[in-house]
């Protein structure tokens, strides 16, 4: 089960990695180094990372990168990835233009009304 990450993990020093320039979240163009740094800046949960960097919030909605980001954060914190609470899942499940959201099929049109 997900555990609340211990915030007393300590202020470990940030050590630059050779592959820190590698892009992890391609939609928002966030690199591995930025994610690792965010952990050192105190972002310990996926929700915090997400709000801080916007990674996993792009067009793919984290479909490609969420697992990768989680793995990097977990490694940086030294905890198993399965213990990190994933970020919230919110509607819409797929990127949807606002005009479509506004275009609700009304009950009169569909003829079914309850």
């Amino acid at each position: 089960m997900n555990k609340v990450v211990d915030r007393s993990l300590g202020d470990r020093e940030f050590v630059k990695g050779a592959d820190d320039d590698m892009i992890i979240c391609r939609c928002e163009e966030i690199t591995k180094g930025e994610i690792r740094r965010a952990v050192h800046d105190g972002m310990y949960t996926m929700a915090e990372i997400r709000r801080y960097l916007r990674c996993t919030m792009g067009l793919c909605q984290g479909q490609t990168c969420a697992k990768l980001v989680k793995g990097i954060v977990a490694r940086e914190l030294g905890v198993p990835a399965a213990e990190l609470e994933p970020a919230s899942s919110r509607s819409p499940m797929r990127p949807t233009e606002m005009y479509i959201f506004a275009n609700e099929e009304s009950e009169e049109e569909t003829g079914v009304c309850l």
Partner: protein
Amino acid sequence: MKRYDLIVIGAGPSGLSAGIEAAKSGANVIIFDENARPGGQLFKQIHKFFGSKEHRAKVRGFNIGSQLLKEADEAGAEVRLNSTVLGIYQDKEVVVRSGEAITHYKADAIIVATGASENMVPFEGWTLPGVIGAGAAQTMLNLHGLLPGKRVLMLGSGNVGLVVSFQLKQCGCEVVALADAAPRIGGYGVHAAKVARYGIPFYLPYTIKKVEGTDHVTGVVIAKIDQNFKFIEGSEKHFDVDTICVAVGLSPMSQLMKMAGCEMDDNPKKGGQVPVIDEHGQTSVPGIFAAGDVSGIEEASSAMIEGRQAGIYAANYLGYIDDEKMNEKEASLDAALDGLRQGMFAPSNRGKKIEKTEEGIDISENLLAKGYVADDEIERFPGVIRKIGIHPVMECTQNIPCNPCQDACPKGCIKIGSKITSLPVVDQTKDCIGCGMCVASCPGQAIFLLNENVGDGMAEVTIPYEFMSVPEKGDKGVALSRSGHPLCIAEVVSVKSSPAYDKTSLLTMRIPKEFAMKARFYKSEVLAKTV
């Protein structure tokens, strides 16, 4: 707001099966799928499936999809395609996008059967065009008729990596190598053997060091890794490729359930975030059920059974069938599911190293490392015998849930018994008539017919052949070994196709006797010159 008894999200094998069962009980069912075609993953699967008759083994994936769709139609379940479920809200309200509009639906029960999405691994250059998921390659090939590239490196040796490598070959792509960070091949040995017969090399434990190119992939460097996932200096191998296919596992697409407030569990054995479900597939939210890959990555065969179960549970929850009927229906499905979850690839065995088959035979180490059973190992398996006259040889050496070969033989030459994962055995008291039904029915393409002595020091080997340009009788080519090495000149003495073989041709080649136990593939003349 439109109202239904049951909303099923996802029209893959599990969603369709769930909808069918619930609709049959009298429930008013609607199934949504975001794709233009129903069947989920099945519609990309052009290969014959493993399993037993009840799980539609030996039927090609896309045909199973069509069958399920027809069944859903007959049962009265509505299937809505091009309809993406965007969210599940309180009191089982579901919002669906179709076309340029969204519609609200409400149901008393929901079955989530949204399947899984592909995992990615980052390496230098992974964002270059040309790096794609193996599933994406399969979609391009089999749904859209497009080649993803000409020269491909496959990363990942699980079933998806193996199956897609073979399909790329069938479409005329060059697969230069299969690499995997694990020290052993992850997928079924029979799938690996199909790839190895083609001479595609396996590199284990290797992974991608970097992908080269400025605006698209032009090459790749792979290197061996140690136990700590560190590259071993000097082990680099370079390949000119234009495509990298990544097949490193799937993750359940369980976000909708999380959104609906279901209790979740992060379970690496199941592929990631899965809903916590009770023995009835019900999540912590009463009336919301989960089935198929979304509740743990498995296979289409188990997805179909889980789907049927979820449909039955939902029908019971909705009051369409009573407990007694539910338990009765469930018992046989439970037994079938249990059967599928046996063997060395069972979910409970994931990650374990298995050294002996259930029969106590040493597993082929060569198969796990290189993709083919070595010549000196093959005869220890009960499917591989020597006999006078024509007889089958089953090079099926792992306990996988599969048995169509047993049902296919009209003469009862092949026995697996009631345990579906047992190795196939040749019943030597029965006489093979060489009809070839076993060869064509084997989804692993692991059955060959041998006539080890046809006179003049020659033997005949019949192989399953599933490539576009089928050789003709009289053609001369070269016989290849299990590892894809040229062995000797081979003459095609017959090529049989029949509707009963379902598009698998049976090619019989004549070769010198001493190669009868070694020759397992045929390549046309062009290559023969090199022997």
